[in-house]
């Protein structure tokens, strides 16, 4: 085991897969000579050359579309979005092309590509640069949506995403790039579609993914001080969703709070809450609550930004509410 930042864990995954398979290549804005806008691709241009680590113009639809086309003919492209905010310009390629060609061709075409980059809020970058769009992508049949929260998961899941034959939307988080954690030294993969209990507990289930998982873990530590033993479930993959692990946790604790960085209306937590109420109705001792971003565009001011996000304190309050404390 080595202790790595999530940035370095992702970089290792990219380097290992580029070295392992000649059909893998990376393209995106500033991924090469600049060493990555967030340094995730650092050193890769020098090691693999410009055809496999391709700096692109600022043209998100082309970036995604080139990945789609190369994937159709058997390559394994990794398209980096500098942030997922800009992926709105690539959405047509992902929704109408990457996700659809296999179906529309009766199974003839496959699209083994990864669209990756940071998603969610960073620090005071305001409304256009702080959005969590996972619900948009998870809505689309044909796509796979992965959102790791730890360095170990990030590396193992990214390697699976690159090797998988389906189009994978792999959403990272800028705030988590410096988070450190233990990463196995030997080769390993983490299967897509497998959730993980990050903290076992018996009193209440807290569900999160990516950065919201850390809000849930912080809340669990605060709750522990107050004598509440929270179980924290890391969804890790939104599509396909490992609902069994969530149900098992809820059946044990009988209470559930879902934490997400996206907006409340039609957010992904609503999908999880729906499945819980259908499958675990008799096990629930309280309504399933959701802690989300405020239902407004992200404000710039520091205090407003803090108030906008689903902070651990809000998660603690929600947990107490379902515990009737």
């Amino acid at each position, binding site marked *: 085991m080595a202790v790595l930042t999530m940035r370095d864990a992702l970089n290792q995954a990219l380097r290992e897969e580029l070295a392992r398979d000649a059909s893998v290549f990376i393209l995106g804005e500033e991924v090469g000579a600049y060493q990555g806008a967030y340094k995730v691709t650092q050193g890769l241009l020098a090691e693999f050359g410009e055809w496999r680590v*391709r700096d692109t113009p600022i043209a998100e*639809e082309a970036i995604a579309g*080139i990945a789609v*086309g190369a994937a159709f003919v058997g390559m394994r492209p990794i398209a980096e979005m500098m942030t997922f905010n800009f992926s709105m310009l690539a959405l047509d390629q992902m929704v109408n092309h990457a996700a659809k*060609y296999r*179906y529309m061709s*009766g199974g*003839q*075409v*496959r699209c083994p590509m990864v669209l990756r980059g940071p998603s969610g809020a960073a620090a005071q970058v305001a409304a256009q640069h702080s959005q969590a769009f996972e619900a948009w992508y998870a809505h689309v049949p044909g796509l796979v949506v992965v959102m790791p929260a730890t360095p170990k998961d990030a590396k193992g899941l990214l390697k699976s995403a690159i090797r998988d034959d389906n189009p994978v939307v792999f959403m990272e988080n800028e705030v988590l790039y410096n988070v450190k954690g233990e990463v196995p030294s030997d080769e390993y993969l983490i299967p897509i579609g497998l959730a993980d209990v990050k903290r076992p507990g018996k009193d209440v289930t807290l569900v999160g993914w990516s950065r919201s998982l850390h809000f849930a873990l912080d809340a669990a530590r605060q709750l522990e001080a107050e004598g509440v033993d929270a179980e924290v479930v890391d969804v890790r993959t939104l599509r396909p969703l490992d609902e069994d692990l969530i149900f098992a946790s809820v059946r044990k604790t009988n209470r559930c709070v879902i934490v997400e960085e996206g907006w409340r209306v039609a957010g992904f937590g609503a999908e999880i809450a729906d499945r819980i109420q259908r499958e675990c109705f008799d096990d629930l001792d309280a309504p399933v609550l959701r802690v989300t971003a405020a239902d407004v565009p992200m404000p710039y001011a520091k205090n407003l930004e803090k108030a906008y996000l689903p902070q651990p304190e809000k998660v603690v309050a929600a947990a107490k509410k379902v515990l009737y404390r």
Partner: protein
Amino acid sequence: MERQEALKLYRQMLLIRRFEEHAAQLYVEGQIGGFLHLYIGQEAVAVGAMSLLRDDDYLLSSYRDHGYALARGMDPGPLMAELCGRSTGVSRGKGGSMHFYDVPRGFFGGDGIVGGHLPIAAGVGYAIRLRATDQVCLCFFGDGAVNEGAFHEALNVSALWSLPVVFVIENNRYGMGTSLDRASSVKDLYQRGSAYGVPHTEVNGMDILAVRQVLADAIALARKDKRPTLVEAETYRYRGHSMSDPGKYRTREEVEEMMKLDPIQHFAGHMTDVQHVGQPELEAIDKEVQGIVEQAAAVALKSPWPEAESMFEDVYVRSPFIHAAAAEKDPAWRAAIREDRVVGSAASEER
């Protein structure tokens, strides 16, 4: 041109014409639903351009895609079955008129989003460069697509990185009901290549020999020098944008005037005058393709509808990297996990 080659091209154009005339009839009879965009009038472009492709080359097209499929050698039977929404259709009844594909022949479709397949064609070109082969990619689209951002993004990177892609604008003068004059600030669309340093040229798209001459140069430039070309083929669609279009944005006189330039009639003149093919032989070809089309339609209409469960198939690819127990809960994943049909996807990897 060799006599045999000329006969083959003539037959292909006529097959496309008769196939689509029959499809229009089936549409009127209610056997074909949705959108049916006919290529009638434009046949010389697809047939001329694709007669120059090698078997291992690639092509992508817009949704007006019947002509490319037939010109690439696809069997009319499964194409007609697809139009009729049957399980024996080339896309198993999930694509319809706009979504014909033949991966073993390098044909990646039938795209229903105007301009959406241009960056994809650039991606195919990028893959060709990465693998250092001498394949080329042909990308067909209409005059409507040149105003989409995707057109500009694709042309820029194709020139920037030297990608072997030939972009063919089929200028049929109307993007649905909006004439080119009302949609483009520049009327000579091929001139737009100059903005990106892409070699560009125009050609009479009603003349298959002219199309072949211009496309031969463009394909050679892509194959040998890895450079893209933007070709504007001036052509005309006789029918509406789709079957539901009454065509009130243009005059009957204009359509009749353009029909005098008919690419098949024009090439028939070449066949008799230069190739010395007799009228009876041309008529025999017509009769033969009519028979093929009628047979395709008869078989299609007797073919079964898709099974209800097939709706969940072909969404995902079975994958050892997906946790099966979790995915089993989702019907589309369940179908993928239990996939035992052999489909063209394996060929996708090989190509």
